[in-house]
């Protein structure tokens, strides 16, 4: 392990004082096995305390540090600098969201869209004394989608959302799938009603950006396609 000097450009913006976002260059010296988050920490702690970004768990589970690096949406904490060629890094906030400051974006609308699909078990049956029974095969239907950490990388990468901010976006739709596919849930039809419109599931044009952006490798496009089938069935 050795120290290396790298070239980093960060898109900076403070709405209070800057007319528009601008690139600022840094040349920090970092360990050669650093992650993108390590690089940002080095800049923030040692060079420029005014740089703002979100981070918390640094183990790819809290979803705070999604951002765009060299053109790709990634989680800064789990992405080693070796995943990029060369020693130059362009770091910018997730596209498609309003910037609050520097790499921090406004996620209020992102979370509000999640609320719209009624993200909780809807039950018409009575509650048993112990657990609801669910077969391992039924659990298998949701085992991948429950890994979603709501980092926003998918929704931010979606051209359909860039073109129409009212689109629910892949994260909220994936959450709808998570409940629709849960064998314990009785709310599938009302949820399908919510997503079965031009700003819902049909705004997905199967571009696959979301799947490529997902740090948890969830096959989002595939699940959204299943929702289209379900919506079609319900409409017939």
């Amino acid at each position, binding site marked *: 392990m050795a120290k290396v000097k790298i070239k980093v450009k960060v898109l900076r913006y*403070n*709405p*209070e*004082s800057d007319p528009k976002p601008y690139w600022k260059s840094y040349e920090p010296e970092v360990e050669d096995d650093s*992650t993108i988050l390590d690089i940002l920490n080095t800049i*923030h*702690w*040692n060079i420029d*305390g*005014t*740089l*703002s*970004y*979100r*981070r*918390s*768990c*640094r*183990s*790819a*589970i*809290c*979803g*705070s540090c999604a951002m765009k690096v060299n053109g790709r949406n990634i989680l800064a904490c*789990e*992405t*080693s600098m070796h995943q990029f060629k060369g020693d130059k890094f362009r770091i910018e906030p997730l596209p498609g969201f309003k910037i*609050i*400051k*520097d790499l*921090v974006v406004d*996620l209020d609308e992102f*979370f509000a869209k*999640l*609320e719209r699909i*009624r*993200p*909780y*078990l809807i*039950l018409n049956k009575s*509650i048993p*004394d*112990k*657990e*609801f*029974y*669910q*077969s*391992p095969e*039924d*659990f298998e239907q*949701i*085992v991948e989608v*429950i*890994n979603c*950490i*709501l980092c926003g990388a998918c929704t931010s990468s979606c051209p359909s959302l860039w073109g129409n901010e009212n689109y629910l976006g892949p994260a909220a739709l994936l959450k709808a799938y998570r*409940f629709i596919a*849960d064998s*314990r849930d009785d709310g599938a039809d009302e949820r399908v009603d919510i997503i079965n419109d031009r700003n819902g599931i049909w705004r997905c044009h199967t571009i696959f950006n979301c799947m490529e952006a997902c740090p948890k490798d969830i096959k989002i496009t595939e699940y959204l396609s299943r929702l289209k089938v379900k919506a079609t069935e319900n409409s017939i």
Partner: protein
Amino acid sequence: MKVDEAKKYHKIDAVVVGAGLAGMRAALEIAKNGRQVAVLSKVYPTRSHSGAAQGGIAAALANTSEDSPELHMFDSVKGSDYLADQDVIELFVHEAIKTVYDLEHMGVPFSRTEDGRINQRPFGGHSAPRACFSADVTGHVLLHTLYEQCVKHHVHFYSEFQVFSLLIDNDISRGVVAWDVRNGGLHIFHAKAVMLATGGYGRAFKITSNAHANTGDALGLILECGLPLEDMEFVQFHPTGLYKHGILLSEAARGEGAYIINNQGERFMKNYAPTKMELGPRDLVSRSEQTEINEGRGIDGKDYVYLDLRHIGKQRIMERLPQVYDLALNYLNVDAITQAIPIQPTAHYSMGGIPANIHTEVIKDAKGTVVKGLYSAGEAACHSLHGANRLGTNSLQDAVTFGRIGGAYMSEFVKANGYENLPANPLDSAQAKISALMDGKGKERYSPIREELQASMSKYAGVFRCEEEMLKLKKIVKELQGRFKEVTIDDKGPAYNLDLQEAFELGNLLSFSETIVEGALARKESRGAHYRNDYPTRDDKNWLKHTLAWKTAEGVKLDHSKDVVIFMDRYPPQERKY
């Protein structure tokens, strides 16, 4: 920047500080009881560190083998090295079962047995497979489910609000003052009841599994109010931290059969815990690992050993331990299917914290006098459920169960009581802290001070401790506290000022770290996670006692008059062997 006046004044029945499992479960209970509740969190709720817990949540459901709450109780008492209050454990092990079914009914996706029930796996120190799990993302699915339930029940979230001071006057809680991180500005939350659920504080150490956010803010604020902390010397070091990073590799790996091996390829736990082997309790496994390392049997003579999953096989690794696999691959470029993973002990969990009784009411002395309207639950609190060492999977259960219990008591409290008056000049304390950091003339930066604190705490108050080293540490912490007064920050603006947040957090780290050191210095015995090289045995004659620690102008004041609650007829202290 001037912060002369509150940007906004909120009046609300109950305020919960912290949006992890404890905080959100409390808030949910209060909302379900028809009361107004606000949750203040410095991160978005789904970013809370409860989500990083991987392995499971303990409850004696007996779904995969025989089990009982009594056995769960015995395991927890023994695991605590007899320092836990047994009345608390007794309540806990019975409530745990209700808690898990309640969570399942809310929609938590648990892994299933063949016959469709909640699956359970073995865990360190538990004598039956008791960990209800969801692959290795148990904390994550619990956190998201509770968030979703809170949304359903109209809990008011104030995300990215950092509490800067507690409004406590005459031992009565009246609310909190919080900084709006996103926009800047102080808000007053005037509340009948306040719960402190800010989680753990592993960030006092260099190698830690904890998130950047885990800085024990409520603990610093409690000390500032002249209230005590309890059992701070008991810090759990988890044996399977990812080498150099400290990131947690779930104990579920060992639950699924992983080995820990030294540079001889030897499963050295056979020399320390011949019966339980790798599934010994965390304090014991961490000490064994550190001993191997100290005696030159670390890999290549370095400060790590191996966690070996290879014999478990690809299919089971990917099905049961996908997160462990990904972490090793992404951070160390190790493919756990074909390679062993470098690990070392990592500061993981704080058994001590804000003293609270079985109803989660915060207490201010060894007699148990209650601070009216103030509650605490989860890792921030010390009930004391975990004593000197917590068993894996008891923490998620602790957070949810005591969150629920606390929420129920708070609901009753706000129904029966009115608003207390705010103290005169409620913003003073928060304003003073902000203006010292923003407008001060000092030349110190906070990051080198924090780095030195973390390195010193890991070095001198880690897995093994002794008087000589801790006296050194005490001096270092004092000196760093002095330097902190000279800290000013680069960022002077109101919007998302990360600099301000980190500097404020460092003040809290420095404040409560002193109580860890003093507690550890005074406790001249070895018990659970607190191991003294110079006092290597447990001393039940003198030390079946809790530690209370206050900060005073003369330094830390300790009180050891709070006895451990022990049911002598049922669970008398005995030698702890695994």
